[in-house]
C-alpha cells in the first residue's frame, strides 16, 4: 500500500471521526446537519480516492470516480431536504444562533 493511499485513508477516516463527534456534540439539529453532511461526505470522498490509487483497471476506476461524484452531488441535496423539512416543521433552534432567513426574506420583499 503506497503512502498516498495511506495518507488519504487516514485523512478520510479522521474526517469521518470528526463528523461523528460533531454529530454527537453540537447543540442543535441545524449545526449537527453541518457536521453530518460536509465532514462525512469529505471523508467518504477521501477514502474512495485512497481506494482508487492502487486500481489499474480503468473499468473499475471510472465506477469509483462516479461514486465520488454521486456522493458529492447527493449528500448536500439530502441535507438540504432534511433541513428544509425540519425548518418547515418549526424545529427548535439553538437560542444563541436564532435567525430566520426564510421569513426575513419574505418581509424584505413585501
Amino acid at each position, binding site marked *: 500500500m503506497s503512502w498516498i493511499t495511506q495518507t488519504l485513508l487516514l485523512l478520510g477516516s479522521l474526517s469521518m471521526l470528526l463528523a461523528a463527534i460533531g*454529530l454527537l456534540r453540537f447543540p442543535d439539529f441545524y449545526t449537527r446537519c453541518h457536521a453530518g*453532511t460536509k465532514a462525512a461526505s469529505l471523508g467518504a470522498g477521501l477514502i474512495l480516492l485512497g481506494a482508487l490509487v492502487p486500481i489499474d483497471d480503468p473499468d473499475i476506476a471510472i465506477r469509483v470516480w462516479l461514486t465520488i461524484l454521486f456522493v458529492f452531488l447527493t449528500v448536500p441535496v439530502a*441535507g438540504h431536504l432534511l433541513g428544509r423539512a425540519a425548518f*418547515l416543521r418549526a424545529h427548535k433552534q439553538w437560542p444563541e444562533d436564532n435567525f430566520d432567513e426564510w421569513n426575513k426574506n419574505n418581509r424584505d420583499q413585501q
Partner: protein
Amino acid sequence: MFTLFETIVLCILGTALLLATVRLLRGPSVPDRILALDVLSMIAIGILGLYATAIGDPALLDVAIGIAVIAFLATAGLAHYYLTHSESASEAEKSVKKKSSNRKADGA
C-alpha cells in the same frame, strides 16, 4: 490479514460508527435520527473502501455505489415523510401553508 495501519484506520471508523449510533439512539428529534442514519451509511461507504484496498477486491466498491444510492433515497424519502406525515400532521400542514402563502404573497 490486516496490517497495523489498516487496523488503526478501521478502529477510527469503528469509533465514528459508534458515536453516530449513540446519536441515532439518543436523538431528541426525528431529523437527528435521519441525519445519523445518513452519516452511518457514509461511514459504511468508508469501511467498504478500506476493505476493498485491504483485501484487494474491487467488487466491494460496487457495493459502495449501492449504499450511496440507497442512503440518498432513504434520506430524501424520510425527510419528505417527516415533513408531511407525523403525529401533529395538521400543525405541520398549517405551518407549511402559512409559509407557502407568505411566498405567494411575495410573488404577487
